[in-house]
């Protein structure tokens, strides 16, 4: 059967497009890197693909807030095309800046009646950009990308990854609906909801690291699965025998397998 086609969205300042495309190819897909200007000219191009990946980076420099400007462009010019894409049963994955873009475009979590956003991603409590590896636990089985995954060890690298819901009720609502799919976990392996810094690297409410929409087919996460598809990307691979593949590869495999 023909290969699954992935559109990896390029934009001014996007900078994880190459390795994200590489990860999808390792998972058996054909990945093409397409500049957002091509979609703005001709949003119909989306229909040629089964998966849209918005990769990490600093779209438009994170000026005016991470993901804000590209999020607005999507909201103003690509909203309908993306809703059709979702309606056609296809998949959308936002990684790091891609997650920020999805949240701020309103594609991932619906605004309330008054047009107020459900949540945002804002400055880390540490007040600075940090690159560190974190333990993750899947918190629901709703999302296509994490099916069969219980835990992962992946790097985060961001300055604005703190998940803040518009109010406590909203977080409860998202959790109840299974939309909170990924949480930061304590490195000592113990359970418990209270995950202190640096295990929760940014101070996210409920240690939320990733969420999905009501269908489970649109997902955003702050950690970088594409940065752990090979054992040698693991910070401690020299210490002992690890499986040749990294934890992140399964995320891309799940996406491709969904169309088999």
């Amino acid at each position, binding site marked *: 059967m023909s290969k699954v086609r992935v559109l990896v969205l390029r934009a001014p300042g996007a900078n994880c497009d190459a390795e994200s495309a590489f990860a999808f190819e390792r998972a058996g897909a054909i990945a093409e890197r397409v500049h957002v200007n091509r979609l703005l000219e001709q949003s119909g191009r989306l229909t040629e693909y089964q998966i849209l990946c918005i990769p990490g980076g600093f779209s*438009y420099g994170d000026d005016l807030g991470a993901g804000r400007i590209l999020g607005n*462009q999507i909201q103003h010019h690509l909203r309908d095309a993306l809703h059709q894409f979702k309606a056609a049963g296809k998949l959308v994955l936002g990684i790091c800046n891609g997650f920020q873009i999805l949240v701020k475009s309103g594609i991932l979590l619906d605004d309330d009646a008054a047009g107020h956003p459900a949540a945002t991603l804002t400055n880390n409590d540490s007040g600075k950009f940090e690159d560190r590896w974190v333990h993750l636990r899947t918190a629901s089985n709703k999302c296509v990308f994490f099916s069969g995954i219980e835990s992962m060890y992946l790097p985060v690298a961001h300055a604005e990854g703190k998940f803040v819901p518009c109010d406590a009720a909203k977080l409860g609502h998202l959790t109840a609906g299974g939309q909170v799919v990924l949480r930061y976990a304590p490195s000592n392996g113990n359970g418990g909801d209270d995950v202190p810094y640096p295990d929760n690297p940014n101070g996210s409410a409920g240690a939320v690291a990733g969420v999905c929409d009501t269908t489970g087919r649109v997902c955003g996460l702050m950690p970088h699965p594409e940065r752990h598809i090979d054992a040698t990307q693991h910070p401690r691979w020299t210490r002992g025998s690890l499986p040749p593949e990294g934890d992140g590869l399964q995320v891309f495999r799940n996406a491709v397998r969904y169309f088999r």
Partner: protein
Amino acid sequence: MLWEIDIYPAEGQPDLAGKRIAADAAEMGLSDRLQVRAAHGYLLAGNLAESDVKRLARELLSDQVVERAVVAPVGDPSLAQSPDGNSQLIHVLPKPGVMDPVALSAQSAIKDFRLAADGVRTFRKYWLTGLGTDKLTTLCGKLLANDAIEQVIVGPLALEERHLNSGSAYRFKLVTVPLGELDDAGLERLSREGQLYLKLDEMRAIRDHFRQLGRDPTDAELETIAQTWSEHCSHKTLAGRIRYRDERGERHFDNMLKETIFAATGTVRRQLGDDDWCVSVFRDNAGVVKFDDQHHIVFKVETHNHPSALEPYGGANTGIGGVIRDPLGTGLGARPVCNTDVFCFAPPDTPLDQLPPGVLHPKRVMKGVVAGVRDYGNRMGIPTVNGAIYFDPRYLGNPLVYCGTVGILPCDKAEKETRAGDYIVTVGGRTGRDGIHGATFSSAELTSESEKLSGGAVQIGNAITEKMLLDVILAARDRGLYDAITDCGAGGFSSAVGEMGEEIGAEVWLDRVPLKYDGLSYTEIWISEAQERMVLAVPPESWDEFSALCSAEGVEATVIGKFVPTGRLQLKYQDCQVADLAMDFLHHGRPPVVREAVYAPRPDAPRAAEATRDCTPTLLKMLGSLNVASKEWVIRQYDHEVQGGSVIKPLVGVTNDGPSDAAVVRPVLSSRRGVVVACGMNPRYGEFDTYHMAASAIDEAMRNCVAVGADPRRIAVLDNFCWGDTDRPETLGSLVRAALACHDLAVALGVPFISGKDSLNNEFRYTDDAGRRQSIAIPPSLLISAIGQVADVGRCVTMDLKEPGNLLYVVGSTRDELGGSHFHLVESLSGGQVPRVDPERAKRTFFALHSAIDAGLLRSCHDLSEGGLAMAAAEMAFAGGFGARIDLDSVPVEPAGLGAVEVLFSESNTRFLCEVKPQHAGDFESRLSGVPCARVGQVDAGERLEITAAGTTLVGGQLAALKAAWQAPLRW
């Protein structure tokens, strides 16, 4: 109408900016009662309805979930409403003409709302309580704003729309400089006051040249010559004539660099014969060596010292931005794959009242520099994988900022050639008034007045403009749309076009250059060092496709001239010729610089032997000394894993926080071949003999590479000389001596130098309170950056101890070499012998150790440098989370009978501490049989480091305590 939008944290959200200012103020002893409420905001000029502005504030400029916006016309009382009662209001705005990238982004994003703002400006807003008015100026000057680029407005803003227009129309007027009549005094005054910074004989040569032509030069001609002849662009001192004298006699150089460092590379390449793996050295914007069948590796390290002293954030920002354009401007364009950054600062605990006038506090310099590198490197998507920080009081007025970039270049894109008839095309950022005189300014020493004099040399970068530029250049490269490319750095178009057209000739139409704002004169356009610009030679037949490609990615590309076979550099503004110079005079008319250099090695000052004793307190002091201490606070702010090729990270070990010797990345994700990046530097050794300082730096860079698995046959190095005023024969002498060491070591080790750069005149001059002229010169600071290769990254090794029961070996010989050591630093001792290198034995050691690593016989390996064996053992133990026992009696020493304390802390070169499984001991020992190597101890499951000699314990410490001491100083 001019609208103001103030954006505050919403109720219950943390005020991170406010808290940071208050903390810094307390730390600097300004006030511990200071409370700060911080906001940021935007000024929008234009015909916008209140409802429109409110919508923009809500949907674009603020985050409704965590922020609160106040919107009103400038001057409206609601904007002067203090959030918490009576407090002092401060606004900080970029000065007119200073780059404001966020404002530019906002202006274009507003278009997505089908609205238009004529002008946008960002600002920061602070409400202060608990600060005496006497301290207000200090706070503004030291913390809130930097006068080089920002203006402080106390109280509410009272601006009008016109304040947002940074430019006013330019009326063309050709300016000529009456040079013909000037005598020596006049020439010197013109050189100084015109910020040309040319020497008298150079000024004379220019005057005489134009006398022959029977006319005076235009300002553009004079500036072009000044840029091209500047130290920064021509390296005239080190590439000039030097008469050097030292204890071995006298030596004359016609071109010092050529006869030392370049010559060494030539010798190495001849020795390699058919195996020569250098591709292009000291020719292009970066050095180029072979990597695999399809790719070459390019590497360049630059410095950006003087701008970073004036404006740390912008200086480091544009420093990294500038060096990234070097690989991009090498061959037909290399793709950057990683960055390295090395800094030198004064101690961050320097008391505020000890700062000379015009000097920023070192802690602020360090925070600014780190933030500048972080924000630019991270936004470019280039991992910052390697670096170092050195502290010395002499860097107070003159910090050093070295930025390096490694790139990967397809083998068939390594050569470029400008052709007559090609268009001269500028791509990327627009040209503004920023960076005027940067190239010539870097030739001047810093003074307490520099900021006022040269504020124009300070720039703010815009990483996203450069990222877009990078993406489009690589696409155009692969389509073969241009003949040549170079970066537009120091000297601006003047240098870029001058270089590209040197062999041909060029005609430039300055009025076609896209500008950030009106009002630039033709000369300002020509010499502006505005960032994020590249100059390309595009054949006319490729122009349409090239131009279409650029606009498809939203990158501006403009034809500004043509390479023409005239042998002349001709500049036009509208129809008027504003410059007409012979390329030959421009590039070969400079009178050779002739310099005196002397070096007198300082006599050996013997040191008393140390009595065997408990050295644990010394080790703890050393772990907590600034050069050695953990740099995790810095490293974590850099994205060191973007691009997905990370193999050996800067932080390694059981809790990801041990100090790696070198970084390893896979530039090609589908391949197992790796690039190794490391560095070596030790300014403290320069006090003794800059020859041994340089030799030690090369050895250190090499052993860092070898320690992680690099093949010593495939390591290349770069030199970066940062020195004081080389007009002083003693200062130049110490540099020449270091260059001689570079030559000798490179030849003996078979390690080619492939690129380099020098930054001279790193001195800070000021007048102290007593009215005395003071000068602070930096110590001789030679950075050696090494780039290695590893065939299969699966063979790489890290420095953290791996498992109890493994054996520990010391490779290399230990001598009584404590001169300039960290043992002397923390014990306030002096004298002794500075570490030397035995190159022949070093080479054998590197090869032998590599064969063992390549055979998979090592579980961990760490090089011995600052703090010697004690430091290496401590770092390996707490990084690995395992204890270790080491017996000094079996460590190989020369001569026999060296004292235990000396063995423990000596910094002798070419030494490693290695962890080997017992079953591999035999194989390991036989591979190392030809070099000094001995089993000295064992890894255990305990939590202590125990180092003994003749039954006495010299070090006995809990790993947790050792690690805590090492992490404490720079955990900010």
